[in-house]
């Protein structure tokens, strides 16, 4: 199943938690939020085949003034 982050797409096998999926693709769970089928969810949610999964980086904007 595809997981999108910015302009990239990653393929992950369903049946694992979003947190494990984030780690599998080499990202830090603290650094992203998870949106499944258009809804913001906690990262303990188990991803099912057919889910639309999008990760949103929590870092945005510019540097500190």
């Amino acid at each position, binding site marked *: 199943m595809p997981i999108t982050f910015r302009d990239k797409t990653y393929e992950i096998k369903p049946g694992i938690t979003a947190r494990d999926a984030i780690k599998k693709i080499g990202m830090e769970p603290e650094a992203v939020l998870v949106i499944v089928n258009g809804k913001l*969810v906690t990262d*303990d949610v188990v991803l099912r085949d057919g889910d639309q999964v999008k990760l949103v980086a929590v870092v945005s904007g510019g540097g*500190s003034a």
Partner: protein
Amino acid sequence: MKCRKCNTNAVINMRHHKLALCGEHYGEWFLAQTDRAIEKYKMFKRDERVLVAVSGGKDSLSLWDALLWLGYPADGLYIGLGINAPAPYSDVSLDKTRQFVNSEQWAVNSGADSQFAIRNFVPTLHVVDVQETYGRTIPQIAQEKNRGHGKPCSSCGLTKRYVMNRLALEKGYTVLATGHNLDDEAAVLFQNTLRWQTQYLARQAPTLPASREGLIKKVKPFVRFYERETATYALVRGIDYIYDECPHAVGNLTNFYKTLLNQLEANSPGAKLSFYLEFLRARGEGVFEGFNREETLHACQVCGQPTTAPGKCAFCRMWDVGSVVQ
């Protein structure tokens, strides 16, 4: 995971607080925590004129939204930096900021049935375009002056601090609020601790009073929120912010320290929070007092703003402001 308050699906699990909440209860919690921080760190009172520095990002737009929702008459200041390559970062961030203020999302927030309602207050967005005002964009001035080892960040920081301070004072605001979150503060603290920059440590605080004439009071109401918490608030509230980072911030040292601290946090929930709050406790006990040197300030001979060295201030030197005037 379920919301602790209503048992519906949670949108966030804050392991450091052992608290999971749904969107509705998270919004309430977030606003209450913001108000608590404003009071705890003596940031401002309800009748003060607050200017929020807005960038179009999640932190600053969420801060503006939260302050309006809480009943503070807060206006916004956007500084157009002219960072539009390789992507139109500045143009998009200004669009997001204008969308926010024009959407009147804040007006819905402060509806008549809200206990926090602001009566008859319409927030103003001040826009200062650096190229229009000073003749060049931030990348252009950084390249021209060869500052920052190929990165415009130091030129950008100097310009933003100057413009924010000057406009806030000229327009009669009593306090300038920025959207710095706990991850920002912990990363700076980590950097300054690694180098034992004691003078910087002595000056790092949620509230910097207007201790000298010509300097606006600066506050950071989001210092107790993790970055993921401000992002969650923005998503829950439906705030359309710029998702991308500034192209010049990608891969910078602050982000590297944020990554290290997030790895620590993953194994030890609450590590970032205790690192920062214990620093504030130590600072409050006077641990860094001896390092806070009181510098003599002079009025810049060109703009009149406070500066540590006699003559022109760093801003006027960088932008050649005096030579333009003369």
